[in-house]
């Protein structure tokens, strides 16, 4: 039994599966964006350029790493791994091949929400550790963006928990065996997706890493291995954030089941992947179709529109639940 659990954590649906999905989504993001913009996108490495993200990752791994002389070296070295940890660990709590995830405990939703906040703070620390002009501006933007999206994100998450009457992801998924939460709380879903895009810095919220304004934002001073892992983490975070949305609003891996018991995990996994792909595709289409906002405009959007919307949905759900 121990071996099975270890394999689950390391290979499927744990570590390797998550990273593989991260690479796949990186490729998909480029391909969807390219086709929407009338381009071809990655083409050479693998079929339809499928392995281009892997090739880019490997290339960055053996490139020279330059540490700026003014950087806080200890944090500069450690923070990328701390950042990488968050989505990998978080994915273990997302149910993929059954209502129970690889790691699970009572009230694990709180831990998952903590992980979201944790990764945001690690980025701020990262940004400050390489103290150049651009990263300093980026740090300010990161913090402002964080305090903007975090509140509606948590409210949207809590709405699902309130309706399902459980603070564990397994409980939330099980409660959706008949009807998905999204039907009761469409606005929470919308708020969650927009806040997730802000957390992942997808356009129109790529403000802390806006290329034409502050070079690469908080990524400016990173190179080589660190950069490779930071970029990978951004993609894996999408897997984690999307997986969480699937569990909270789209019934996790649940769906019509065949009688054959051997195939059940495979069918669960397929349902999960299809739902995740739908969310990820939505994010990619949005990111291609929108222009970058200014930080003040993003804050306004979250504080003036999305937070009240999320609160209204929460109130509605509490009333529904009470009746």
């Amino acid at each position: 039994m121990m071996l099975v659990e270890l394999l689950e954590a390391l290979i499927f649906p744990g570590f390797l599966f998550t990273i593989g999905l991260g690479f796949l989504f990186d490729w998909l993001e480029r391909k969807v964006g390219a086709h929407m913009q009338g381009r071809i996108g990655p083409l050479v490495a693998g079929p339809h350029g499928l392995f281009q993200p892997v090739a880019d990752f490997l290339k960055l791994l053996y490139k020279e790493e330059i540490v700026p002389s003014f950087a806080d070296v200890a944090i500069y070295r450690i923070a990328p791994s701390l950042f990488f940890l968050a989505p990998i660990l978080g994915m273990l709590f997302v149910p993929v091949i059954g209502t129970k995830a690889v790691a699970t405990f009572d009230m694990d939703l709180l831990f998952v929400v903590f992980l979201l906040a944790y990764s945001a703070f690690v980025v701020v620390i990262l940004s400050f550790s390489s103290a150049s002009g651009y990263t300093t501006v980026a740090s300010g933007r990161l913090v402002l963006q964080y305090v903007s999206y975090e509140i509606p994100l948590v409210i949207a998450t809590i709405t699902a928990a309130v309706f399902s009457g459980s603070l564990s992801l397994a409980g939330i998924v099980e409660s959706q065996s008949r009807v998905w939460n999204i039907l009761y709380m469409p606005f929470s879903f919308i708020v969650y997706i927009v806040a997730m895009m802000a957390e992942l810095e997808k356009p129109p919220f790529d403000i802390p890493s806006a290329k034409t304004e502050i070079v690469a934002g908080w990524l400016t001073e990173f190179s080589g291995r660190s950069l490779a892992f930071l970029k990978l983490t951004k993609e894996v975070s999408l897997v984690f954030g999307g997986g969480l949305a699937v569990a909270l609003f789209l019934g996790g891996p649940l769906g019509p089941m065949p009688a054959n018991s051997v195939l059940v995990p495979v069918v669960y996994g397929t349902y999960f992947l299809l739902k995740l792909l739908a969310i990820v595709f939505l994010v990619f289409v949005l990111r291609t179709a929108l222009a970058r906002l200014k930080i003040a405009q993003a804050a306004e959007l979250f504080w003036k529109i999305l937070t009240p919307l999320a609160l209204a949905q929460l109130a509605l759900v509490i009333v529904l639940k009470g009746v």
Partner: protein
Amino acid sequence: MGEPGESRKEASAGLVQYSTENLVPFGPIHPALKEPEYFKLYLRGETIVDVIPRIGYVHRGLEKAAEQRRWTQNTYMFERTCGICSFAHSLAYVQAVEGLTTYEIPERALYIRLIVAELERIHSHLLWAGLLGHWAGFDTLFMWVWRDREIVLDLVEAVAGNRVHKSLATIAGVKKDIPDSMKSKIVERTKHLADRAYFYKGIVDTESTLLMRTRKVGNLKAETAQKLCAVGPLVRAAGVPRDVRADDPYAAYGDVPLDVVTRNDGDVYSLLHVRLDEIVTSANAIDYALEHMPKGPIRLKIPPTIPAGEYSTHIEAPRGELFYFVKSSGTAIPERVKARTPTLANLPTALELLKGYTMADVPVVLTAIDPCFGCMDRLSFVDLDSQKKWSWTGEQLREYGIKHYFPERNA
């Protein structure tokens, strides 16, 4: 983060009262700038307090080089001042040279000049609209617009033989004719481009994130524009109907009806509309010119020397008013050629506009003037400490360079 010594000098000259801690360098190498130029942004939080430009990173000494080349050779060299408004530069130069002579330029050549100049304007405006999308973080607009730009580049290639440097204008005429068989193709393509301009106007009006980035950003008032001597689409977007094509017609502009497009708000959104509308008016002008083009020769045979004298001319380049001054001593090479490009005229306006806006507006506002730093860079000597200005010969400049880069040689 900037050199403290430099800032101290600027401070002593009364230019800056801010510490280097608030300084964020924008350039000389920056993803938003396609050419190297340095802008020191002094920020308070994200708000811009002051901008100090350091120009001269792409100075190439073209004006000096012109004094060693023949009149005709210079046509091709000045064309290389800019890769986008290349025809405008050669046109302004040949017009200035023609001003020193008494040649009757063939009518047909003037019409061909107009057609190519307007094709170039369509190209330049499309290129800018795409880049604005890129600067505002809207790469999809960039990719779409630049795909349509290929159409006009193909047209230019069909007419002139080259996509970028047309090499079409020459003193007392043009080098290539536009055959009648090509007319229908040009009309069809320019119609399509005008349709696309309407389509992009629709996008600009409806895409809410783009509206948030461009509306009420870089608001230029008509008086400010006139006081700072802004030119081209920038001043027209502020509501001043100033256009050399209409005010002082050159080439065949006197015969071709042309609307001067203006808007009243002076923000980047109005600029987008002005430039997209000008694509439509340019397309109409091309159609009209093709229809009414007279028959006849396209160039005169002229001697290699130009009569002595001075002449200056101006034309409406895609980016705005472009000045050329030539001075001849009656020989086969010019004594002096001087160009004043629209970017240099618009830069003070752009820097003034930036103040009070945020870091996020810098790429959008700074590049709203469609800067071409390669065209703009000139050389002058000033000492900020003593407020002195002087000029140097090439030899003195060379000595200074050696002293600056190899101090050990002089020790």
